[in-house]
Structures are given as structure tokens and as C-alpha cells.
């Protein structure tokens, strides 16, 4: 009954400290910083200038190019300036700084909480609306949703999988969303199904969220073509390829995309955002963020406006504990460590984890004892020890033959290594070098 992917995987301590903490809507902060690049692809171009009065939900930066996404103002107020700021990745980028005044929304946005289940829009209208509303994948990759909803010619899609796995330890925002906004999530799933013209949706949820499995299974009875698939707890099951394999047995070919096996995967949070965009005309200006950590006083799940400083989120969770040594944006396995907390929440921020200093440093690296645990842990069937050494020795051609580009950087190898070797650091180096080399080959 509980399915899973067959090869590799690990089971890190779950630490879902906030699983039973209902979503709390945080008050609008006095100022927000809204980066123009919160997605994969080209940054959006600002269409406001200093002094422009904006309402919440108003477009402030327009998508530029095919892979890009619109950015909307999450608050009402006046544009203070457009300047470069450090974002959650640690890089500087353009952002719009808005001084908040009141909380006035664009009139077309329906802010009521009544559930609208009936889907009146056509396929084209749905895709167009998702594009207008600046929707991106909220699982972490932030790929523009409208592109994923458009099946390229020559490809066929017969199944949508909604990713409710949330296999990263600590994070619970998707879990809470499924529990508290389950009907909206499933309506969103039905909308995605319609946009792609498919008959079937599978919602994959890991067994450590039995309440969500039960709740959504009950709700799914009221929808056509939606089934809930309970999954065995195993990291990295939230990876698209692993989730597809677990739910359907289909194996996305090396270097391929889910569409190569007729599947589109969307995150639970994205399904919810699709619901809000299509049924309520609400752009993506809010999201749920888990703020947690073993020593955090009041860890919780918070619904915040995009652009809210991470500092305010940490304050809402009872402040930063004195011995905090590391702050991670995202999950502990794939998230990014923040150098400073004075950065804004973006569309891709799923969680903020505060690690006490004793958990913030890596252990001393020891010699590889060739135990092979990294190979056993790799869900892609790679040999992390080998591609890591090949990268370390700059033998990139060999690393390419060993399929280094199949690595999704889930970190299971580095997690499991008893000698604490920085396997993924070297693999990242090798992977990016190999991808660059491959690109140069094409241009030559």
C-alpha cells in the first residue's frame, strides 16, 4: 500500500517540530524588499519607479523572455527605491523596496475565503492566468508554472502528480497546507489537470503525515480523477524522478524530463497558488514558511507576504536563540545557508531553519574507507565516491561518462558518509564544469 522508489535513499531524523502548528498569518511588515528575480530564468523588469503608489496584487515587474515570471507588489504603499540588495542566495540583485501604507488590494482580487470549486476557465485562460499571476513552482526550484502547463508539441502528458511528499526534515509548510487548505489544494490540482488536458491526478504523500493522507483521501472523494498515494518515508522522494518512479513505476530517462514519461509534477504549494490565481485572481504574493529549529522558542508555520525580512519571521518564532550558528533557507538537505538574516522571503522560501552552533559545523574529514554507503544511498544509481574523486582530480571527461550530470544534489551521499567527506561539494564542482564543457562543445 505504501509505495516508494526502489533504489537508494536515506532516512534522516525527521524533526518535524511544527507538524501540529496551524498556519499563522503574520501582520504586514512596515517595509518589504521584493527582488525581481525569484524564479529560474530571466529576471523580471521593474515597471514602477521611485514614488509610485502601489496596491497589493499590482504588477511591479514584468516577465522578460520565455522563462521568466511576473512580480507583483505584496503590499500597498509607496515605492521607496529600486536598488540592489543581497537576496537569500547571498548574491546581489535588483529589488523593489516598498514602504507599506495600509493594506489595500487591487479590486480584481477576491480575498474572501469561500471555496470556489467549479472551474469555468478554458485551458488557455488558465495558463494565461498563471502566467499573469507570476506563478512559479513552490517546492524550491521556482520554475515558472505556466511553462510546465504547456505541453510542447511532440510530447504527451497523461498524468499529473501533486508533490505532497515534503521529504526534507523539519519542513511542514506543505503538510499544514494540505491539512488546512486541502479542498483548495485539490481544486488547484483539478485546474492543473484541466490545463494539461489529462484525466488523472495522483497526490503523493509520505506516511509520516497520516492526518494529511486521511484528510485528502476523504476530500478526494468529491473530485473526479484524483487519487491519494501514500508513500513510505524515504529521502529524496520529493525529487521529481523518484516521486514519479514511486507513484507510477515509470523511469524518467537520464537527461530527460518528467514529460518524457508523460508526467507533470507540481508541488502542493503550487497547486494552492494555482487555485488562488485561477479562482480568486490572486497573484503570488504570499506563501507559507516554516520557521523552526531545535532551540527555537515558538517554531511555527507562518503565512507571510513575499519581501518580508527573514528577521521578522525569526522574531515571530520567538527570536533567534543565542547559540544559533547557522540559518538555512529551505530544508537541511538541500537548503542554502544564509550569511545574514536581513534578506527578504521570496517565492521559493519554504522554510527557515535555525541550527544551534553545535550542529552548524561540519565534522572533521577522514579518509574514505570504501564502505560504499554513498553508492547505496544514491537514488540515481551513481557512485558518489567516484565522481567526487574524479572532480577533485579535475578528470571531468571521466566524470561525465560516470553520469555526473544525473546528480540532483540531494546530498544523501554526503549525509551518509561515515568519513564525513564533502562528496557533494566536489560533485557540484564537477557537475557545473561538465555542463559548461558540454555547452562549449555545442557552440563550437
Amino acid at each position, binding site marked *: 500500500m505504501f509505495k516508494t522508489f526502489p533504489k537508494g535513499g536515506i532516512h534522516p531524523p525527521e524533526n518535524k517540530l511544527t507538524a501540529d502548528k496551524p498556519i499563522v498569518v503574520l501582520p504586514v511588515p512596515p517595509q518589504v524588499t521584493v527582488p525581481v528575480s525569484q524564479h529560474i530564468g530571466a529576471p523580471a523588469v521593474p515597471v514602477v519607479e521611485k514614488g509610485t503608489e502601489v496596491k497589493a496584487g499590482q504588477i511591479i515587474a514584468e516577465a522578460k523572455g520565455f522563462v521568466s515570471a511576473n512580480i507583483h507588489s505584496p503590499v500597498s504603499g509607496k515605492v521607496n527605491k529600486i536598488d540592489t540588495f543581497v537576496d537569500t542566495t547571498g548574491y546581489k540583485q535588483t529589488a523593489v523596496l516598498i514602504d507599506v501604507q495600509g493594506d489595500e488590494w487591487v479590486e480584481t482580487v477576491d480575498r474572501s475565503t469561500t471555496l470556489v470549486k467549479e472551474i469555468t476557465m478554458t485551458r488557455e485562460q488558465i495558463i494565461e492566468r498563471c502566467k499573469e499571476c507570476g506563478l512559479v513552482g513552490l517546492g524550491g526550484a521556482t520554475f515558472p508554472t505556466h511553462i510546465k502547463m504547456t505541453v510542447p508539441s511532440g510530447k504527451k502528458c497523461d498524468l499529473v502528480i501533486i508533490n505532497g511528499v515534503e521529504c526534507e526534515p523539519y519542513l511542514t509548510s506543505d503538510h499544514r497546507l494540505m491539512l488546512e487548505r486541502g479542498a483548495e489544494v485539490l481544486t488547484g490540482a483539478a485546474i492543473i489537470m484541466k490545463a494539461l488536458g489529462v484525466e488523472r491526478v495522483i497526490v503523493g504523500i509520505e506516511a509520516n503525515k497520516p492526518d494529511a493522507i486521511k484528510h485528502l483521501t476523504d476530500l478526494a472523494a468529491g473530485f473526479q480523477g484524483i487519487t491519494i498515494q501514500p508513500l513510505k518515508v524515504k529521502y529524496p522522494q520529493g525529487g521529481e524522478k523518484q516521486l514519479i518512479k514511486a507513484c507510477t513505476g515509470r523511469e524518467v530517462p*537520464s537527461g530527460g524530463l518528467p514529460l518524457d514519461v508523460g508526467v507533470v509534477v507540481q508541488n502542493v504549494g503550487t497547486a494552492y497558488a494555482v487555485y488562488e490565481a485561477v479562482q480568486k485572481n490572486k497573484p503570488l504574493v504570499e506563501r507559507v514558511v516554516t520557521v523552526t529549529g531545535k532551540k527555537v522558542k515558538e517554531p511555527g508555520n507562518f503565512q507571510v507576504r513575499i519581501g518580508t525580512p527573514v528577521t521578522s519571521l525569526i522574531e515571530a518564532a520567538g527570536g533567534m536563540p543565542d547559540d544559533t550558528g547557522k540559518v538555512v533557507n529551505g530544508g537541511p538537505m538541500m537548503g542554502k545557508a544564509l550569511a545574514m538574516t536581513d534578506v527578504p522571503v521570496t517565492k521559493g522560501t519554504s522554510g527557515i531553519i535555525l541550527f544551534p552552533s553545535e550542529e552548524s559545523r561540519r565534522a572533521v574529514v577522514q579518509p574514505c574507507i570504501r564502505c560504499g554507503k554513498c553508492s547505496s544511498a544514491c537514488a540515481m544509481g551513481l*557512485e558518489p565516491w567516484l565522481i567526487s574523486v574524479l572532480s577533485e582530480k579535475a578528470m571531468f571527461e571521466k566524470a561525465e561518462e560516470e553520469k555526473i550530470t544525473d546528480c540532483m544534489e540531494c546530498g544523501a551521499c554526503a549525509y551518509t558518509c561515515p568519513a*564525513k567527506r564533502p562528496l557533494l561539494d566536489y560533485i557540484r564542482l564537477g557537475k557545473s564544469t561538465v555542463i559548461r564543457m558540454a555547452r562549449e562543445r555545442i557552440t563550437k
Partner: protein
Amino acid sequence: MNNILNVSPSPHQQSIETTRRLMFGVVIALAPALAASVYFFGLGAIIVTLTSVLSCVAVEYLIQKFILKKEPSISDGSAVVTGLLLAFNVPSNLPVYIIVIGAVISIGVAKMTFGGLGSNPFNPALVGRVFLLVSFPVKMTSWPVPTGFKTGYLDAVTGATPLGIMSEGIKNGETVSALMEKIPSHMQLFYGYMGGSMGEIAAAALIIGGIYLIWKKIITWHIPVSILVTVALFTGILWLADPTKFADPLFHLLTGGIMLGAIFMATDYVTSPMTHKGMIIYGVGIGVITVLIRTWGAYPEGVSFAILIMNAFVPLLNMYIKPKRFGKEVKHG
């Protein structure tokens, strides 16, 4: 808010498993067999074990400290495991100076010259053991008889191992069934009531240790099972072909170093393959070579040689036996 934040690439957490914990796990798994040894051989087993462990650790420490001039890493526990395994592979009446020579060869030659933990191609304890076997053939094949706990050490009463009796007898034209009369029953063999290296005799205790290793995920089943199944099948075929000339498979599984070899020696991380497929090939190779040596070789026992020979193939197995890559077989749904 004045915290200085550490920044590093993901993953931001690591498992609690460390080299040291794994090595310590092996030590725990060896405890039942050590207890059985002390029960059957007495004080000698304790002296041999202590000498071997202490000298292995000392040799590693001295080489790292004074020759390599680097921070000694004896706390990783690998020298302790080598010391225990070396002790398990020698008779319990072996004089201290020979054990020390064995430790010098194991750690000094087989491990440190190749670069220390993780770099040695051959199992250090087995290199030490085989060195001693060819250098001190008499001392290394004078097997104390298991008489229950006693305080004798060098003056222990010795006798032949069941494999020795079998091998010698068959050469002299005796039938297997006649030879079996001179050998303890299979049940006694299972508990360890026989002559042999101090740690190899008690199959029951070694199996308990093996189950612990697999339960704690320190090793996988692939190597031990493939070795034992191969030995059972190969000797089983020979036995069915001619039961007067060949001993039964159970006899082969319960005698000599096969259990110790399959569970503890062949599964040494550093000198065994890293993929499950590779492990099975390696295990089958060890099983086949062991039976070949036992049946047609000059020595009555061949597990040590079989493991060392297959150790040499490990780099090849690691290079050519690959795990199945995800998405290699393109399937369209």
C-alpha cells in the same frame, strides 16, 4: 542578533555514523566469538588478543608519529579491529614475539606503506597471518585442543584441525565416513569444539556477530551469503558426486576459517567491492578458490589465500561493475 553565522553548502546535517562507530560496531560483533575462544582455549586466547591489539595500535601510532610525522589517527579504531582479527586468525598458543611480528607486518607493511586506512589493497590482518604462516609454519599450525578454560598458554595440548584430519586422511586413502569418526559431531563443530585459530572455531558465535553487523547495517548480506552459498554448492556437488572422497557441505561450512572469513575478513570495507553486484562476484570467487584449495591444494585450509587473491580483483570489480543508473533503460509510459 550578533550571531556569526556559518555558511556552507548543503547538506546541513550529517548522519551520526562515523568511521569510529562502525569500527566499534565490528568490535562488539566480535565479542561473542572472543568469549567462545576464551571459553575453549582459556588464558592463551586472552594473552594473544591483548598482545595483538596493543601491538597493532602501537605500531600504527609509532609509524604515524615518528615516521610520517602526522597526527596519529589510532582513535578511529581501525587498528583495534585489525589487531582483533589478526589474533582471531592465529592459534591461541602463539608466542608473544611472533604476534608482534605479525602486527608489524599487518599494520606496518600491509596498511601504512600503502597510505594507511582506506588505501591498502589487501586485508592487513590476513597479510600478517599469511606472513606468519609461511615464516613460522610449525608454530602457526600447532592447534591447541579446546579443553575448556585453563591457565596454560604456550604449553597447551595441541592436535590437528578437522580440516587437517580430513585432508591428511583423504591423501592416505581413508574414506570420509571413517575420518568423520575422528572428528567431533557437526553440532560440536557448530559450537566451536575443535582445534583451530583462536577466533575461527565457534560458528555459532560468529553467526551471532554477523547478524549484529547486518542488523546494524555495518555490512550487507551480499559478501557473507555469496561466499557461504558458493562453498555449500561447490562442496555439495563434489559430495553428491563421491561421498567417500569428499566431505559434506555442512562440514565445510562449520570448519576452518570460513565463517570468520566470510563474515569478518572478506567484508573489510577497504578491501572489498563497493557495489552489491561486485560484492557477489567477489564472494563467489572467494568461495570457489577456498574449495579448490581445500580439496586439491597443498594446504588443508584456503580461506585466507582466497580472500587475499580476490582482494587483488577489487579495483577491477569497482571499475567495471557499475550500479544500475537511474533512467538508463528508456521506458515510455
